């Protein structure tokens, strides 16, 4: 896991936040518009993009999520990274 420069971390985290916010908006929208296929397609694209971005982030900066959402390094290192409010 090569240590990417710090700037990458914040840019990458911002991209993740951008995609996740759009996913939240689309989720709320789709709750009331179940038949909107175009929005569903956009939702699925963003879900894939979000997963890929998180994988890239986790390769550089360690696990991002817990309970099986992120792979763990050795030793158990999900608590090593800075907490979200410390970023």
């Amino acid at each position: 896991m090569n240590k990417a420069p710090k700037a990458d971390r914040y840019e990458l985290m911002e991209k993740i936040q951008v995609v996740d916010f759009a996913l939240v908006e689309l989720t709320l929208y789709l709750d009331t518009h179940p038949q909107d296929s175009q929005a569903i397609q956009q939702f699925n694209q963003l879900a894939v993009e979000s997963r890929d971005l998180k994988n890239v982030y986790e390769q550089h900066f360690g696990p991002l999520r817990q309970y099986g959402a992120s792979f763990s390094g050795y030793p158990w290192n999900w608590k090593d990274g800075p907490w979200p409010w410390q970023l």
Partner: protein
Amino acid sequence: MYTPVKCYQPYYSPFDPCPPRTPICYATPPNLYLGFQQPNLPQYSLKEALYKGTLWPSLYDPYPLEGGGYREQSTEG
């Protein structure tokens, strides 16, 4: 024309011993007027959506009232 804030001047009776009240303003976000959201509305770019707080320009509201105390911002008419 849509305005995010609406104000009114409470009636001031000639027999009212107290000083007249300042105009009372309240926020009127776009979702009040939108009704059922139509599909395929135009969207912001994703990055802009994060900073604007919504994915759809038609739902964007800067909430111009300061501090939620329903005081009118000087810029608003």
